[in-house]
C-alpha cells in the first residue's frame, strides 16, 4: 500500500512526513544525514544533481551551479542559467535551461526517496501563492512522479497539525498562525474547535523571510568590513558564500547577544563583530511589514488582538528573538512555544493527505484523524472584466467585477448577472481575473483565463448573461457564462492540468541522476 505523504516544499528547507501506522504524523529523516529537514538547494553537476545540505557544501567551490531559493521563482517566467549562475528571463533561446518547476522536481524527488513507495502526496504552498506558482508546483510534482492529492496552504497545514496534537488540545478559539519561513511569510487567523480548523483569513508577503534578514546582515557586514578596510565586499560574485555566513551569524544571534566572524574579503580576512541590537536594527523595515500584516489579518477577520487566544509559530525564522517580541507587542501576549516549528507544516500536510485519502488508511489511522476537520478560505478575489460607466470620467471603462471575495469559505459558489452593452452584440469576451487585493483596475489584476461566448442570434443590448463561479476546496475554479435566452454556455475549469511544456521539461531532466 502506498504511503500517506505530506511535503513542505520550502524556500530554504523542505520536509516530508507520513502518517505512521497509528495515524500520527512522522517527519522522515534524510537518508544522507539523518536530519528531518533538507536544504532546498540543488547542485547541478554534469548529468548529476545533488540535493540538500551536500549541495550547500558546493557553494564554496561551484557557486554558480548551486541553486537556492527556487520557490521564490515559481511564479516567474525565468530559467536558471548554470553558466551565468543566476535566474534569467525565459525566452526561446534558453529553453534548455532549468525552469523553477524542474529544480523543484529535483527537491521533491530527493524527499520522495526518504520513504518507500511514495505515489501520492499533499504538498504545501504559501497561502498567497499565485495561481501560476501553484501550477508550477503541480508540474514539479508530476516531473518527480508524485501524484498530488491536493495542495494545501502552509499555515492551514500547520493549524491542522496543532489542532491534532494531543497535548495542545486545550487550544481552542481564534488562533493566529505566524508562519515565517526562509522566503515567505504567511499569517493566518483561524478558529480551532477541538480538532476542527476553520480558516478565517490569510495575509502574507511572498518576499519576506529569513533570507531577507540574511541580506540585511550581509549589508551590515559589508559596512563594517568597509569601515575597517576601506574596501567593499564583492557580494555579487560571492553571494551564496556570504549568505551562508550571514545565516550562521543570524542563528548564533538568536541565542547570544553578539557574534564575531572571520570575513574574507578583498582586503583579506577581517574579524567582524555583530551585535544582536545591530541586527535587529537592520531588519526594522521587515519587522514593520510583519506588524502590518498581522494587523491586517486581525482587521480582515474582524478581531482584536485580545480576541485571539493563541499565536502559533511555524517556520525556522520564528526562532529569532525580535520576532517573538514583535508578536508579543502586536498580539499583547507571547506566542505559544514547544512545538517543532520546522516540522509542523509537513506533519499537517500528512494529516491532510490522510483526510483526503481515507480509504487507504488502516483502522488505527482512521481513528486517529477521524475528528480532524478543515475549512479553508479562498485567498484571492476572483472576478471578471466588465465594461461599466465611470461617472467621473463620463465614459465606459473596463473594470474588474469581483464575484468571489477573498476569505470566502470553501467551497464557494457565487453568481452574478451581466448584460450586453450593444445592440446585436455577437459575442462577449471573457476575462477571468484573480487578485490579492480588492482591485477594480484591470491593470492590477491577473487574467488567469480568456475566452469568448458567441451568441447564436441577435438581440438588443441588455441581453442577460448569468455568470457563476465555483471555487472548490482543492483550489479549482469552475466558471460558467451562460446566455439566459439561448442557454449557450462558456464553461471552464481553471487549474490547468499541466503547463504546455511540461512534457518537454520532463524529457529534459529524465536522464538526470538525483543524489
Amino acid at each position, binding site marked *: 500500500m502506498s504511503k500517506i505523504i505530506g511535503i513542505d516544499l520550502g524556500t530554504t528547507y523542505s520536509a516530508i512526513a507520513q502518517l505512521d501506522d497509528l495515524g500520527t504524523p512522522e517527519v522522515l529523516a534524510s537518508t544522507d544525514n539523518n536530519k528531518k529537514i533538507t536544504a532546498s538547494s540543488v547542485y547541478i553537476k554534469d548529468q548529476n544533481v545533488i540535493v540538500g545540505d551536500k549541495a550547500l557544501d558546493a557553494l564554496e567551490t561551484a557557486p554558480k551551479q548551486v541553486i537556492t531559493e527556487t520557490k521564490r521563482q515559481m*511564479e*516567474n*517566467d525565468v530559467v536558471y542559467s548554470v553558466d551565468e549562475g543566476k535566474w534569467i528571463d525565459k525566452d526561446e533561446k534558453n529553453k534548455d535551461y532549468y525552469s523553477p518547476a524542474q529544480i523543484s522536481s529535483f527537491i521533491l524527488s530527493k524527499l520522495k526517496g526518504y520513504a518507500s513507495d511514495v505515489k501520492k502526496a499533499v504538498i504545501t504552498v504559501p497561502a*498567497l501563492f*499565485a495561481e*501560476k506558482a501553484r501550477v508550477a508546483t503541480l508540474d514539479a510534482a508530476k516531473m518527480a512522479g508524485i501524484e498530488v492529492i491536493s495542495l494545501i496552504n502552509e499555515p492551514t497545514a500547520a493549524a491542522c497539525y496543532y489542532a491534532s496534537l494531543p497535548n495542545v488540545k486545550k487550544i481552542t478559539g481564534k488562533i493566529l498562525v505566524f508562519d515565517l519561513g526562509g522566503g515567505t511569510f504567511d499569517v493566518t487567523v483561524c478558529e480551532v474547535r477541538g480538532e*476542527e480548523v*476553520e480558516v478565517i483569513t490569510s*495575509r502574507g*508577503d*511572498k*518576499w519576506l523571510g529569513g533570507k531577507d534578514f540574511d541580506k540585511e546582515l550581509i549589508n551590515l557586514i559589508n559596512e563594517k568590513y568597509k569601515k575597517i578596510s576601506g574596501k567593499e565586499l564583492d557580494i555579487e560574485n560571492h553571494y551564496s558564500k556570504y549568505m551562508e555566513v550571514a545565516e550562521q551569524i543570524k542563528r548564533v544571534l538568536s541565542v547570544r547577544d553578539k557574534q564575531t566572524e572571520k570575513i574574507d574579503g578583498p582586503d583579506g580576512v577581517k574579524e567582524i563583530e555583530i551585535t544582536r541590537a545591530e541586527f535587529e536594527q537592520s531588519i*526594522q*523595515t*521587515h*519587522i*514593520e*511589514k510583519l506588524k*502590518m*500584516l498581522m*494587523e*491586517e489579518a486581525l482587521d480582515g477577520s474582524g478581531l482584536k488582538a485580545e480576541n485571539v487566544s493563541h499565536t502559533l509559530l511555524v517556520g525556522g525564522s520564528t526562532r529569532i528573538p525580535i520576532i517573538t517580541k514583535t508578536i508579543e507587542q502586536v498580539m499583547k501576549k507571547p506566542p505559544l512555544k514547544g512545538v517543532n516549528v520546522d516540522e509542523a507544516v509537513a506533519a499537517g500536510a500528512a494529516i491532510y493527505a490522510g483526510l483526503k485519502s481515507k480509504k487507504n488508511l488502516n483502522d488505527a489511522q482512521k481513528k486517529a484523524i477521524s475528528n480532524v476537520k478543515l*475549512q479553508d478560505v479562498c485567498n484571492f478575489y476572483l472576478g471578471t472584466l466588465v465594461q461599466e*460607466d465611470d*461617472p*467621473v*470620467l*463620463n*465614459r*465606459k471603462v473596463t473594470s474588474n467585477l469581483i464575484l468571489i471575495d477573498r476569505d470566502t*469559505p470553501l467551497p464557494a459558489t457565487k453568481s452574478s448577472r451581466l448584460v450586453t*452593452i*450593444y445592440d446585436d452584440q455577437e459575442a462577449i469576451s471573457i476575462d477571468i481575473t484573480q*487578485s*490579492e*487585493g480588492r*482591485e477594480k*483596475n484591470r*491593470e*492590477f489584476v*491577473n*487574467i488567469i483565463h480568456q475566452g469568448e461566448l458567441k451568441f447564436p442570434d441577435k438581440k438588443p*443590448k441588455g441581453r442577460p448573461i448569468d455568470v457563476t463561479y465555483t471555487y472548490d476546496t482543492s483550489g479549482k475554479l469552475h466558471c460558467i457564462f451562460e446566455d439566459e435566452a439561448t442557454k449557450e454556455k462558456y464553461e471552464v475549469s481553471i487549474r490547468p492540468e499541466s503547463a504546455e511544456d511540461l512534457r518537454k521539461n520532463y524529457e529534459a531532466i529524465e536522464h538526470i541522476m538525483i543524489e
Partner: protein
Amino acid sequence: MIKKQNIKRNPQRLKHKVRLDIEFYEDPKNKKIELLIVFIQKGGVSDGKLLLGDIIKSINGIAVNNKEIQFDNEINKINWGDEIILEVERKNKIQNIKIKTLSFENYKKTHAVWGIDIKEEKKQMVIKSYGIEYNYSNYIEPGDILLEINSVKINSLNDLNKEKSKYKVGDTIEFKIERKKISQIKKFKIKLINFQKAILLNKKSCDNYWIKKAGTLMFKEWVDSDYGYNHKDWLGRREEILKLETIAERFSDARHTENSDYIKDWKNKDAKLLTKLLKPEYRDINFKLNFFSLVFNSKIITKLKSLNLKKECCYSYILTGKVIGGDWDKDVPANIKNFEKLISVKDKKKEIFVDEISDVSLNFFFNEMVDKKKDIFIKYKSDNKFWKFSNKKQTKLSTIQSLGFEDIATNLGYWFESKYKFNKAKIKLAVDDFCRSFFLEYPDFDLERIKEIEKMDLQDEPEYDENDYSSDHQNKIYISTSVSKKKVAGKESFLVKLNNLPTDEEIEDYNIGKKIYLKIYIYDITDLDEDSFFKIQENGEDTRQYFLNNCHVIKTEDLSWSEGNGILVQTVELNLYEYKPTELAFPYSKLQLPKYGKRKLSFRTFICTEDQKFDENDGRFITNDSPTFRSEEYLLESYSEGFDEYGDYTDILSYSSSEIEVEYKQPGYLEINRRKYNDLKIALSLALNQDDKNDQKANLEKIKDSVRYGDFTVEGNIHKILSLKKNYEKSLNRKLNLDNILKDLKKNSVIHERYEIIDFLLNLATKDETFNSKENKFIDKVSHELELNKEKYQEIKKQKTSSVKFVDFGEEVEESVFGINKDMTKDEKLKILRKEYSRWNALTNNTDKMIRERAKEMRDLAANLRTQYSK
C-alpha cells in the same frame, strides 16, 4: 410550609428565554404523553448531557408532569448562566443531569438554523415552507418530498430529528428531494449557519423587502417576540405582516374604488387582519361597523379633533355632509352644528344613553338598527361657545345611505377642499395619509402634515370629459410626470417618475401596425422669458428664432444615450404585456448642458407611435417636415389642457413635462471653444518640461500626433500647426505660464476632458519609462487646480506609474506618491502607509513583470516610511 421561591429578574432572561436547544416528541394526534426528547442540538448546551430518548421528569426538583407548558414555566424561572438539574428517565432508570445554560450569545453561536419547515403527511416528509437563510428557492418548492439527508433515508419526523441532532453549525448537509409533480429527484447542499448569522440574514432580508414598512415591522416583532420564541404562531403573524401594505392600501382606497370594496363587505379574515395591523389604540374600533358606530366613536372623534376640525364646524360636515339628513345640497341643520358629544341614541322602541353602556353595546345597537330601521334620533351636546341657549340638542338622522368608514374619509376630503382649497390630488394624498395613520408603522396624521401637503406642487390628472366622448374614438392616454434628484445605482441622477402610462388595452387600441414608444428629451428652459416671447409675438416676428436661441436641447457625449446624434434621449418601446418602467433615471454625468451655472431643465415625455419623427439637431418633434416649437409655446402660454389636446399631432398619444433646477459646474457646450481647449492642451503639455530644452523637441514629437482638433479641414490643420509652433517657441523661452493656462483650461474644458488631460500628461511623462519628481509636482498641481477628485486622480496616477521607475523623489517621496501631507496626524500617516503597503504587496503577484517589480519597490518604500513614523 412552602417557601416561596425567590426568582431574580435577570434582564437577559426576560428578554430571551433560556433555551436548552432540545425538542420534544410531538404526537401527530396532538396527545402528548411525555416530555420525550427527540432532538438535541449538536454542540449546544445539552449535547453530551441529554440523550435522544430521555424523558424529562422534573426541573430543579419541580415535577413537570409530562407537560410542555409546565416545562416552559420552570424554564422561565431560570436565568442564563444558571446550572439546572434535570431529572430524566433514561432506559427505565431515573438520573439527575446537570446542565449549565451559559448565555444567550452562546446559544446564538451554537444553535444551527435549518430554515425549513417539514411536516409528516401520509408517511411522507413534505416540505411546507422555507426561510431566507439558504438558497432553498433554487432547489425546492413547497410540496417537495424530502427523501434523504446526507444519504440517510428520512421516513418520519423522528428520523428527521434524529438526523438533525447529528449536525452542528458549519456542517454540510446534502438534501435529496423529490418533486412529485414531475417525478424528479434532486440533490443539493447547504452549510449550516448559526442563529447569529440567521438573525443578520433576516435583518438584511427585511431591510431589502420591497414593502419597507412591513419589513421593518416584521423584524421588530420578531426580535420583540424573542425571535418568535414567545409567539404562539409566529409564522402566521409573519404572513399577516407581509400583508400590511396591501391591507392599509385597500383600507385607504376603499372610497376611491368604483367596485365598492367597502370595509363592511370585507371578509372576516381580512377584517381580523386589519385589526391586528392597526396601532394598538385603534384596535378596538370595528371598522366593519356602520357609519354611525364609527362617527360617534370617541377614538375617531379625538383623532379628528386633533386636526382642529371642531373649530371649523367640521362635525357638521362629517355628520351631515352626505349621509345624515340627506343630500349635501341641503342646508346643514343648524341644530347639529358644533356637535361635541353624543348623549343618547333612540329608535322607535328604546333610548340608549351612551355613557351608561359599553362601546360594544352601542356599536351593536347601531348595527342592528341601521340594518332594520330608517331613522334614529340622537341627543348630543354642542359646543357652548356657538350655541347660546342650550348645549343639549336633539336631531333626527336618516340611516338610509349609511355606509361606513369610507364616508368619514370622503367627507374629510370635502373638508380639505373647503378649508384648504385642496385640489383632487392633494385631497387624495391627505385622506390616504389620514386613513393609513391608523396603521402600525405609518406616521400619525396631524396639522403639520396638512401644511406639508398644502405646500406641495401636486397637479390634478386631466379628467375625462364625457361630452367629448365619441364611441368610435379610442380612450385618450394621459401620462403625468415628475422629476427629482436622486442617487440611482450609485450615480447622482435625475429621476423621472411616470404616472398613468398606457395600459395594455390602450396600447392594443393604438398599436395596430405601429410600434409605440415612450421618449424623454430634456431642454434647458432657463432663458425662456414670457415677456420677451409675447413681445416678439405681438410684433408679428418669427418666434422660432427666439426658441432656437433661448431653449436648447440637452446633449450627451455617450452615444449609447443618444440616437447617434449626440442628443440625450431615453427611448423605451411599450410592448403589450411586457414590463413598463415607472421611473427612468438620467445620470448627471451623461448630461451636457448648453450653459454654465444655475439652469432650469424641462423633461419632456412623449408617448408616440413609431411614425413620429424628431429633429436630428434639436430633438423637437417634427410636423409637416419641420421641427415644432409647440412645447415651448405650451410652456409659455400655459395651455391648461396640454398641447396634444388639439389633436394636431396624430402620432403623439400623450405628452407631459416636468421641470427642475440644477447647478451646472462646467462650461456648457455652447460655451466651449474646442480649438481653444486643444490649444491649451498643447500649451500645458509643453509646459510640463519647458525647463529642459533637450526634452522639448522630443515632447513636441509626442504631442504632435496625440492632440486632435476634431476637424480635419485644411484650416483646422493649419490652426494646429500654428498652435504647436507658437507654444513650442514660448516653451523654449520659458514663457508658458502654468497658472494662466490652467485658469483658461478650467473655463474651456468639461470634467471628463480634464481627466483626459491628466491621462495625457501622465502618458507623456512616463513615455521614457521614468517618472520624476518635477513631473509629479507639475501634474499634481494641474489636478489640484482643475479640481479633480483626489482619489480618482491618485488611482489614475498609480495605474500610469505602476510600471515605471521613479527618479529624483528624494525626501518628499511619501508626499508625492502616497498622498501623505504634513498636516496629517501620525496615526493617519500610519494608516495610509499600511493601506499602501497592503495594496502594493498584493500586486507583487501581478503577471506583468514591470508592475511586479514596481510593486516590490513601493511596498518596501511604504514599510520603510512606516518604520520611520513608528519610531
